[in-house]
């Protein structure tokens, strides 16, 4: 079965306002080109889900006013410091943060992947993460009374959005060891992927590439976007654009600086890859 292949702008247009959008961390494969297209189309009320943390792409979406809530284990620009637009929005109360922890996000996505209504997780008891989560429950372990266990409801994102080094015409997407992207694709109702290139042949035909491939079955639509992670890099591909990222971190400290960055980098281009 052939994949649905569309331009990056069309991919972004398929992500509706109000959607819960699962995103990888900066060290994963981030579909920045599609994120910029989402900003250009004026996406609103997005509910971001960090799998398990979010960096630049989340800060950009928040700064551009696209975001209503963020559920994540962390928001960070790593060596570039705190996320400035995120921090400003939290202090101003213009977004809601749902604090989580990495294994809770992975586990709750696995619950969605397995189509089970909830999944237990150790830890958490006594933390303010748990204290502030009305959607999580603590029960007494039915197999060993006297043992309190946290239950997390399944986390079913409307959309998973990420980048990858390659896909084939059947929509099979190679992510290698970045299996959190596979988990996102299994758990999400729709999965949108930008790829460096669409290759000939079938990635499932070679047992070695097959082992790191998300089957096209889970991929709603693909866009070809060379350097589609820019200004982030992709592991084994190209390096992050350190100069640009440093400039972003600097400019985004103020609303005016962010607006200038946005205008110069995002709004005036049809797609980051072009």
């Amino acid at each position, binding site marked *: 079965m052939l994949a649905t292949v569309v331009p990056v702008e069309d991919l972004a247009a398929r992500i509706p306002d109000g959607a819960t959008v699962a995103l990888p961390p900066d060290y994963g494969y981030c579909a920045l080109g599609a994120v910029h297209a989402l900003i250009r189309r004026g996406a609103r009320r997005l509910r971001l889900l960090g799998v398990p*943390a979010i960096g630049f792409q989340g800060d950009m979406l928040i700064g551009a006013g696209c975001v209503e809530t963020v559920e994540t284990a962390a928001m960070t620009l790593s060596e570039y410091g705190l996320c400035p637009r995120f921090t400003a929005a939290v202090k101003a109360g213009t977004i809601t943060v749902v604090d989580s922890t990495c294994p809770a996000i992975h586990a709750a996505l696995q619950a969605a992947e397995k189509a089970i209504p909830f999944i237990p997780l150790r830890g958490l*008891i006594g933390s303010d993460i748990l204290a502030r989560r009305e959607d999580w429950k603590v029960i007494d372990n039915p197999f060993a009374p006297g043992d309190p266990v946290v239950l997390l409801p399944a986390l079913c994102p409307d959309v998973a959005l990420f980048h990858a080094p390659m896909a084939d015409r059947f929509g099979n997407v190679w992510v290698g060891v970045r299996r959190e992207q596979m988990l996102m694709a299994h758990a999400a109702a729709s999965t949108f992927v930008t790829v460096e290139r669409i290759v000939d042949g079938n990635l499932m035909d070679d047992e070695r590439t097959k082992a790191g491939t998300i089957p096209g079955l889970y991929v709603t639509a693909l866009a070809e976007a060379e350097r589609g992670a820019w200004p982030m890099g992709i592991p084994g591909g190209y390096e992050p654009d350190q100069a640009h990222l440093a400039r972003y971190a600097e400019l985004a400290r103020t609303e005016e600086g962010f607006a200038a960055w946005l205008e110069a980098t995002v709004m005036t281009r049809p797609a980051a890859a072009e």
Partner: protein
Amino acid sequence: MGPRPEEVLITAIAGMLEGLGHIAVGASSPIPGAAALLARERSAGTTRVSILGSERNNFFTDGGKELFDCAGQGRIDAFFLSGAQIDGAANVNLVSIGDPDRPKARFPGSFGSGYLYFVVPRVILFRLEHTPRTLVERVDFISAPGFSEDGVYRPGGPHKLITDRCLFDVDRDRRRFRLESVHPGHTLDEIVEQTGFDFDIPPGGVPETPVPDDDTLEVIRTRVAGQIAEIYPDFAARVFATPTH
């Protein structure tokens, strides 16, 4: 050249890791990373080190969940946690200062602390800024609690707290820190003044944190420095003056 402060810390931490089978180090942790690599160098091939963010020292092939699953299985013996605040009951805050809904300061978030602190037997708390602002009486947000009620599944927990001024041991029974040693160039008075929480001071006096001997320094500056430069080139260049690899 004598030992630098970072090298004292690296050596002290490596001492806490001796004989362990598997040490994991989170992102952005050059000193713990170097300490883990030093422990590995000394282990004669019996210690594994997983460094998140390192291509060469990352064994995981099952996605982002594997580190946590692996720790839950009891296959990770030591891990490091830091905190914007750490309090006298070993609670860690990585989230915010003030009301979390309208915070005075907002930090990245809890990462995996709310889980790993419970399941890794030796969690080493590490905070380079030792002031009353960071080592507080009571954290504003508990990302991960230092201790748990009876009955709560908790094979792991705090093992030591190391700062730029001193090293604390953990008294798990009394759920308090106890000063173990003071780093060279620092004093007990300074530590009492700069620590926002109450802690125990052993009656017999507190020793100075041992400095690395020449052999250890040699290993740190050659083999460890070379490996850490792959992951933290800026740190390696600044501390060890390593050439770019």
